């Protein structure tokens, strides 16, 4: 069976949608089709990928308008006569074809104050219990595909990249703030520099996350609460600091 694809081709200056047809094999994903097009029609078609199994987060693109991993989008998700349109992530500047410049994300990561562990209790091993780590293990599943960054309207439509680090880095912050061994305090920065207030809890990021991380409910909202506790209820904060309540 053959399928029609419409793929955006171009660079930062100009571009257009082009049509391609691909012969399907059983079990194909969109990335396979793009690779077929590369071999047969367009050797220079630019696309990022590595693992082909949803583990590296390289292949994020917009497929029929939705941010997705090309390697995990099976062809049989579409109706037989549906034309499949593939274009680069809109929130980031295009380099070429399906490849965008995501370096802004790396800059955000660098601004985040690093992990600062407490001393080891017995000098040799850190002790952390399962129940204490489960919460942050969810955030640490992030494969940095930036689909959530792509869909977040603060970055995508309002282009407020200088005001908000985006959902990906909110959960990175959450993973540090909730790390049982960490003793850095990032709450003031989360409010002032990283822009926790910009998020208005639309949950679009959570909807597209291929790792099914509950970005908003488990990551961003608890951070927002910590900010509120600190800045609007400082008495409670001092109390918590003194008596160890850090939920």
């Amino acid at each position, binding site marked *: 069976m053959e399928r029609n694809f419409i793929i955006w081709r171009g*660079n930062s200056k100009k571009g257009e949608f082009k049509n391609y047809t691909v012969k399907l*094999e*059983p*079990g*194909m*994903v969109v990335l*396979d089709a793009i690779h077929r097009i*590369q*071999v047969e029609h367009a*050797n*220079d*078609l*630019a*696309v*990022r*990928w*590595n*693992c*082909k*199994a*949803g*583990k*590296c*987060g*390289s292949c994020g693109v917009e497929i029929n308008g939705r941010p997705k991993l090309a390697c*995990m989008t*099976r062809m049989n998700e579409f109706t037989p006569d549906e034309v499949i349109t593939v274009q680069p992530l809109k929130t980031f500047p295009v*380099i*070429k*074809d399906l*490849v965008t*410049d*995501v*370096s802004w994300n*790396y800059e955000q*990561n*660098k601004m985040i104050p*690093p*992990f600062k*562990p407490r001393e080891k209790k017995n000098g*040799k*091993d*850190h*002790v*952390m*219990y*399962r129940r204490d*780590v489960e919460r*942050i*293990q969810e955030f*640490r*599943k992030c*494969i*940095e595909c930036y689909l959530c960054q792509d869909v977040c309207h603060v970055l995508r439509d309002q282009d407020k990249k200088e005001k908000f680090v985006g959902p990906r880095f909110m959960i990175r912050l959450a993973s*540090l703030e909730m*790390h049982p061994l*960490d003793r850095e305090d990032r709450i003031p920065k989360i409010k002032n520099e990283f822009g926790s207030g910009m998020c208005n809890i639309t949950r679009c990021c959570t909807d597209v996350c291929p790792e099914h991380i509950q970005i908003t409910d488990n990551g961003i909202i608890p951070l927002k609460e910590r900010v509120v506790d600190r800045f609007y209820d400082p008495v409670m904060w001092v109390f918590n600091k003194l008596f160890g309540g850090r939920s």
Partner: protein
Amino acid sequence: MDYSDIQTIEHDVLVVGAGGAGIRAAIECAEKGLSTGIISKSLLGKAHTVMAEGGIAASLGNVDSRDSWKVHFRDTMRGGKFLNQWRMAELHAKQAPDRVRELEEWGAVFDRTDKGLINQRNFGGHRYPRLAHVGDRTGLEIIRTLQDFCVHQGISTHMECTGLDLVLDGDKVSGLVGYWRETGRFVLFKTKAIILATGGGGKAWKVTSNSWEYTGDGLGMAYRAGAELIDMEFTQFHPTGMVWPPSVKGILVTEGVRGDGGILLNSEGERFMFNYIPKKFASETADTEAEASRWLDGDREARRPPELLTRDVVARAIKKEVEAGRGSPNGGAFLDIASRRPAEFIKKKLPSMYHQFKELAEIDITEKPMEVGPTLHYFMGGIRVNSDSQQTNVPGLFACGECAGGMHGANRLGGNSLSDLLVFGKLAGDGAANYINSLTGQLNCSNEEVSKIIKEATDILNREEGKNPYLVHEELQNILQSYVSIVRTGEELALGLDELQKLKADIAEVFAHASAQYNPGWNEALDLKNLIVTAEAVTRAALIREESRGAHTRLDFEGEHDDGLKYNIVIKKTESGMSAEKVRREDPPVELADIAYASLEELEGDNLGA
């Protein structure tokens, strides 16, 4: 041409590759006060290391306190069929625990035991539960931890920058020419030392768990610069790759499935691994299903199930079952965990396998068995290095991680790669720092050498017409898949070598459309010259090892020969082309030999001096 037109970046050390090995090496260099740069073909955090699933081996002894570096060392040597570099296996076993603890200090969050320590799981060939892990996404945890730590160490990271070739000043390394994928422009790195950490070359085969990056670039660059390659005949076929659907053929199914209780069945429903237990391992392997089940339930007296024999043994067994007509519908074996463990357990311990099969094959592994078959997975062989400093025979050139050879001998145990990356990444950083301290005089990069590298790369774009690089690559994969596969014969290897020689003409004529800017066709064409070195090296080495050992199986030379332990095969570049030679192995230090050949009782009683 004069390279004054070309962008030039200076560093004391340039690390080529940003997987676990490269980043760990860069961290060490920065720690030693060197100005350090790191380049990678992909974005930071996307290297192969991110895909590692099962875990990292280190004798922390958190789950079974009988474990120690000696037992780990013994397992590694036995797994490697005693062909490993003794000193490397020793350093690895001794230092792995510290490297794992250090990761935790840098923010990694491993799965925990009930006592709140790092949990460890069973894996093939490891006597005790030894693999620290995070579900089945251990590599992600490790690379992210290293990446987040490294960005605060003052290291310059140059992403999507591919190294083409090394530049020498006399016999010493003095730089590297590469290009930026984004623009296609060239860049010269002027350095005092270079650490290669480019990973393996699995993309020379059709069915592989490796990504587009694994084209043996480090092997090719080192070889052309005069460095030696060692043990190239040992290519690991992982027994469990996906076999269906066709588009995902080769993608890995972690050994953790078997470590956590999964069993292999043939089309007759028989648990066939009981029929393939090698003599050497018979005393340590369960011989009834009842005993294997007791082991799974935690009975310390029971022996390990045969599914956890080393990878070479399991991969060949699956192949034999398929050949005997007892394969699964798509030409593999069944891997069943559904009937062994509750659904919740499977989803918790193997979430990404659950996800992978559900989304890519529409199979729920908590209900149905998986279909699996061998896939090219890992290079035991690689660049030959000094066991302590990781320096090659080219002064100033170092190598670590999968692209270096020697540590794993004839077969690598699962989990021993991630630990290898960290142990030898650090040592390579130390080695480079020591070398730089002792260096006197200025190093230069000659115009002539730099221009030659650039011209060769631009020729591909300047041709009017030529061969399609993707099709040439497919051809190379077909050759290795048919002639240099999981079982080999002299005749097939010789044929394969012939075919590869012929393919060189096509490689010389590849051509890429359009401009150099982010052009995968051009990138692919450039990788071919490393793939062909890699492919030829494996084939030549395989042809002259006339025995079967570990991952190298010769139908025309069955079984291990005593003589086979006396040498390693070393590949190097000569005037007349590639040479493959047997190089005599030195006798191991007595203390190490005693440990490697000791019985477990002796080791656990710890009545050995070393």
